């Protein structure tokens, strides 16, 4: 299909008519900047084919703001060696006119003819959508959708298939897919997607198993039942036989026989016991008799023993008597030694007493001398003390008054000094031998007088002079002086002294005496601390003691010999005493022994005599003879009994009484067991009978047969379904295999075209096509080997390239099938790099040799080397082309 001329009017921005003619049958490159109307041209072409001219959903065709516009598209093209002329007007005065090789069509008829030619559908209502576009949808690529090949191929699927079918002849099946669907749904009734039984088929399988196991258990019960029947028969037969034969009675008879025999043996045993008792008595008797015999023999022996004993007693007594004197002498010697030792002790003690008395006396004498000496001294001190004390009491001086006198003396002195100071001083120097009386006192030589009162000086020859001292207080001083003088003198008087010096003298003497007194008292205390009387008493006492000691001394007897110390004397005495005690004891013991020996002798003599008398008795001899006889007789009887007992014992042993007892037990148990067993069998028989009766009534075998029939039915039905499932599986498998093989055959030409273009882009690469003819896996050579991947995983640019290649391949395929092809590419391959774009240009150039291609772009510089003159839309618009 080749478009030769395109004219549009009142369509979007082309309000004025635009004509694109002289279009090349191969490649046409139409360029223009954005919004110059490239897409509008594409839209116009689409509208001319896809939109019903009556459609009211094509408002987008209308120029902006021009509601009265009637968008018109006019197309002239050649296909199938016929010229087509299409004119379509929308929205206003809607029309569609088609002229094909002189034939004219209009309206929907014209539109349907176009759809048939190109292979698309009209939308039943509304604007045409991509799903209606069929083949043109695949070959006319809109801006930015070149990479999405999947949907486009799907929408074109039927048209492609029919093109392929026509290409390959009648290899496809008209109803194949439908049949496959039916078979699939039939299979789905029996099998799940994974091939497992489902529904009735699955249920029957389970039922088959459960019935089989039920049947098995029923079979088991039947065989049990039959076993029980067999047991019943066996049991009944045995029971009847036992009922007839009654074997327990025979056993019982044997039991009784054994019992009788046992009783017989028992009798023997009793006899045996009796005789054994007799034997034992006899043996006992014999033993006693023999004992008596032995006793008689023993008595004779005893007499001999006693004689010997008697002799021994006599010997012992004699030897004791021989030693009697010796023992007595030893005792007397010991007695004497002891007395000696005792007197020695007494002497030693007296000596010791005397020495002690002498010593005491000496000591007392010494003490007495000391005391007498002290006493003399003490008496002397006492006399002195008493004299001093007397002196002290004769002339005592009051020390306090003395002190007072001293104070008064000082005051008087001070007052006199003070009076001198204020007194009138009268100095005189008289010629030798001359005297004067001053105030009655005769003075000579030179001197001074202090005059405090009116003093008359008698000048011997001349008269008297009266001098009266002046001053106010001279009189008071005079008076005070006089008062003090009076006090002073009174004090002297009270002290009974003439002067203070005398008083002082007296005080000193008194102190001397007091000191003396104290010293004497100290001396006395040291000599006689408790007083002189005590000391005198002490002296008296000591004197008495001395006299006593002297008396004692005189009382002691005089001794000459030295008796040694008391201690040694006493030790000697003790040893002597010990020896005496031992000697006493020995003497005592000896006499005791001697006494005992005498006694023994007497006893021995008596016993000997007694036994001797006894043995020599005449009755005893007879007795001994009788005893001898008895022993013989009893011995014979024992032998007889012994034989009888052993004979009987062997008879008893031969009869095996223990075995007989066991027989009794055995026969008794057997009889009992047999009878019991018989009864038990009878019980089991009844039990078994009733059990079988109840089980028989269940009709087990009938049930079994019924169940087997059911199982058989289920099995048969299952087999049928199984058969059917397998058949469906087989059929479906075959159908799908065939269909796939067919698809592969159909894919082959497409594959060929695809690989033709693909080789330009990727040498040795292959692009697989799936059942729906949609490109899937891309396999290409990489340095490491081969690389496989889905188309969807490629980059956008590569996907776009693959999309374009695929579309070109479809175009080739369609052309081969004699279908019209027109390729419109709106700004395609914008995402390709330069290298790829160069290759794609080769691809496009190649395709353009077979198909008309309209390529719109806003990048004319990219397409310069495409070998065609680009047509500028701007220029076309202005009509300058």
């Amino acid at each position, binding site marked *: 299909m080749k478009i030769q001329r395109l004219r549009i009017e009142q369509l979007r921005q082309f309000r004025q008519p635009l004509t694109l003619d002289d279009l090349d049958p191969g490649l046409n490159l139409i360029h223009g900047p954005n919004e110059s109307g490239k897409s509008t041209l594409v839209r116009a072409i689409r509208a001319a084919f896809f939109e019903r001219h009556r459609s009211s959903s094509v408002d987008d065709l209308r120029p902006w703001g021009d509601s009265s516009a009637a968008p018109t598209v006019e197309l002239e093209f050649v296909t199938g060696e016929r010229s087509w002329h299409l004119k379509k007007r929308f929205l206003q005065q809607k029309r569609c006119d088609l002229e094909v090789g002189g034939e004219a069509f209009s309206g929907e008829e014209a539109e349907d003819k176009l759809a048939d030619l190109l292979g698309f559908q009209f939308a039943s209502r509304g604007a045409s959508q991509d799903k209606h576009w069929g083949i043109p949808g695949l070959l006319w690529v809109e801006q930015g959708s070149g990479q999405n090949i999947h949907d486009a191929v799907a929408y074109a699927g039927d048209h492609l298939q029919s093109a392929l079918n026509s290409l390959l002849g*009648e*290899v*496809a*099946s*008209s*109803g*194949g897919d*439908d*049949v496959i669907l*039916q*078979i699939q749904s*039939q299979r789905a009734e029996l099998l799940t997607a994974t091939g497992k039984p489902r529904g009735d088929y699955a249920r029957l399988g389970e039922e088959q198993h459960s019935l089989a196991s039920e049947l098995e258990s029923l079979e088991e019960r*039947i065989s049990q*039942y*039959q076993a*029980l*029947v*067999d047991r*019943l*028969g*066996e*049991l*009944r037969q045995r029971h009847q036989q036992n009922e007839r034969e009654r074997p327990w009675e025979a056993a019982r008879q044997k039991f009784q026989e054994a019992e009788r025999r046992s009783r017989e043996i028992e009798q023997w045993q009793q006899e045996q016991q009796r005789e054994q008792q007799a034997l034992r008595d006899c043996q006992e008797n014999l033993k006693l008799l023999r004992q008596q015999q032995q006793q008689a023999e023993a008595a004779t022996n005893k007499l001999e023993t006693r004689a010997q004993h008697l002799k021994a007693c006599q010997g012992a007594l004699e030897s004791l008597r021989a030693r009697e004197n010796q023992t007595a002498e030893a005792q007397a010697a010991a007695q004497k030694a002891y007395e000696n030792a005792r007197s020695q002790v007494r002497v030693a003690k007296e000596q010791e007493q005397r020495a002690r008395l002498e010593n005491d006396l000496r000591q007392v004498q010494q003490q007495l001398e000391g005391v007498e000496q002290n006493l003399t001294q003490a008496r002397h001190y006492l006399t002195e003390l008493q004299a001093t004390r007397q002196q002290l009491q004769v002339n005592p001086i009051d020390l306090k008054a003395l002190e007072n006198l001293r104070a008064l003396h000082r005051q008087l002195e001070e007052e006199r000094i003070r009076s001198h100071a204020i007194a009138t001083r009268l100095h005189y120097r008289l010629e030798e031998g001359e005297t004067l009386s001053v105030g009655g006192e005769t003075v000579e030589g030179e001197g001074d007088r202090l005059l405090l009162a009116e003093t008359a000086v008698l000048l011997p020859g001349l008269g008297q002079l009266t001098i009266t001292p002046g001053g106010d207080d001279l009189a008071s001083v005079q008076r005070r002086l006089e008062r003090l003088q009076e006090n002073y003198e009174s004090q002297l008087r009270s002290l009974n002294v003439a002067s203070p010096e005398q008083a002082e003298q007296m005080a000193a003497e008194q102190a001397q005496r007091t000191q003396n007194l104290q010293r004497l008292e100290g001396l006395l205390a040291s000599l006689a601390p408790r007083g002189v009387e005590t000391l005198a008493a002490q002296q008296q006492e000591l004197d008495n003691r001395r006299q006593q000691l002297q008396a004692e001394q005189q009382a002691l007897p005089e001794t000459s010999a030295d008796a040694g110390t008391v201690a040694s004397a006493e030790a000697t005495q003790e040893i002597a005493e010990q020896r005496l005690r031992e000697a006493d004891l020995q003497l005592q013991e000896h006499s005791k022994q001697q006494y005992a020996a005498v006694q023994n002798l007497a006893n021995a003599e008596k016993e000997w005599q007694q036994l001797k008398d006894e043995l020599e008795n005449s009755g005893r001899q007879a007795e001994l003879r009788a005893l001898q006889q008895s022993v013989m007789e009893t011995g014979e009887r024992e032998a007889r009994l012994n034989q009888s007992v052993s004979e009987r014992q062997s008879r008893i042993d031969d009869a095996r009484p223990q075995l007989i007892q066991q027989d009794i037990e055995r026969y008794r148990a057997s009889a009992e067991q047999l009878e019991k067993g018989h009864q038990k069998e009878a019980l089991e028989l009844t039990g*078994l*009978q009733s059990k*079988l*009766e109840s*089980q*028989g*009534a*269940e*009709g*087990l*075998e*009938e049930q*079994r*047969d*019924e169940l*087997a*029939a*059911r*199982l*058989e*039915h289920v099995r048969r039905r299952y087999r049928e379904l199984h*058969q*059917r499932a*397998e*058949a*469906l599986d*087989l*059929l479906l498998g*075959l*159908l799908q295999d*065939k*269909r796939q*093989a*067919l698809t592969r055959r159909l894919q082959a030409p497409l594959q060929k075209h695809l690989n033709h273009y693909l080789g330009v882009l990727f040498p040795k690469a292959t692009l697989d096509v799936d059942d729906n003819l949609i490109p899937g896996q891309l396999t290409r050579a990489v340095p490491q080997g081969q690389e496989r991947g889905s188309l969807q995983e490629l980059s956008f640019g590569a996907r776009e390239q693959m999309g374009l290649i695929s579309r070109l391949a479809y175009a080739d395929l369609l052309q081969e099938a004699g279908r019209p092809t027109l390729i419109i590419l709106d700004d395609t391959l914008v995402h390709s790099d330069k290298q790829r774009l160069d290759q794609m240009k080769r691809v496009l150039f190649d395709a353009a040799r077979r198909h008309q291609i309209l390529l719109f772009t806003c990048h004319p510089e990219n397409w310069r080397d495409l070998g065609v003159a680009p047509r500028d839309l701007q220029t076309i618009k202005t009509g300058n082309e």
Partner: protein
Amino acid sequence: MPRFLHTADWQIGRYYSRFENDDGVALAEARFTAIERLARLAVDERCDAVLVAGDVFDAQTVSDRAIRRVFNAMAGFSGPWVLLPGNHDAALAESVWTRARRLNAVPDNAHLALEPGVVELRQQSLAVLAAPLTQRHTHSDLTEGFDELETAEGLVRVGLAHGSVQGLLAEGIDSANPIAADRAVQARLDYLALGDWHGVKQINSRTWYSGTPEAERFRNNDAGVALVVEIASPGAEPVVTRHATGQYAWVQWKEQISVATDLDELLARLSELSAPAVVDLKLSGVVDLAGERRLLQALSVAEAKHRSVQCDRSGLSLQPTDDDIAALNADGYLGEVIADLRELQVSEDQSRAQTSREALAILTTVLMERTGTTEEASS
């Protein structure tokens, strides 16, 4: 002049697992009605007694109801019935017979020969020497005792036994319950009535198997018969006449279909078969779509007419002709699938072949439905 009915192998309680349920039930029911027919026959033929030679019951533990029904069904003939335990209903310590007695189901005129010995029917001038099985299987000849059994003067000596006459089966088969072929002579019997063999069979002039009165297998020939035996006097030759008693004929055909006429012949036979029958067909060979359609049609007709019709077509390969395929509109790969399935049917592997046959049948059915619908649409 005693005249009695000889029958055996009633096999009451038998279940038929190979048939559809209702068919099985009907066939089981026919065994009961067979007893009624025997009673009527005995009356019609003026028999003095009915002797049943074992296997009255198919199993020991049948339901109480089955037991009662057997004896109820005998009510039509009031003369004596002598019933002998066979291997299926041996007189064990506990058996279907003891149960029947416990149930009080046994009428006075039925003599249960549970122990070996003579059942004397003086009125009928018959002395029946019975050799019942008292174990499930014996390997000694139970009829040996007949030789020693004495019977009253003037009575016809008739032996009644159940087992296999020796020498009848292939050599080397150690069959259970053996019976000497010359027992009738040995035991001076006027007649030996045998059971166990389900088809009627004469051993010698005095020894017969009556067969079962109602067939229950495809294998036995001459089933569904009872014998009327008349013996003029002790020592006289018995006169034996057969009487059909069966309700259903059991037919089993194994056919090879090679050409269309084979099928025609088979279908003709099928349509002529007297009803009601129990039919078992096993077909092998080849059939085309048209043939298959005709066959299915004929089978459908036969099913409605007979008690049961079973047809095993697993050996019959379905081979659509080219015309068939064209008619099916099986173009493209569908045609290839059909061709493949045709080939697969001649596979060595039997089950594979059968699966292919079924697969082809399914496919052709689908295709026929499609063409049917398109035809309808076009018309």
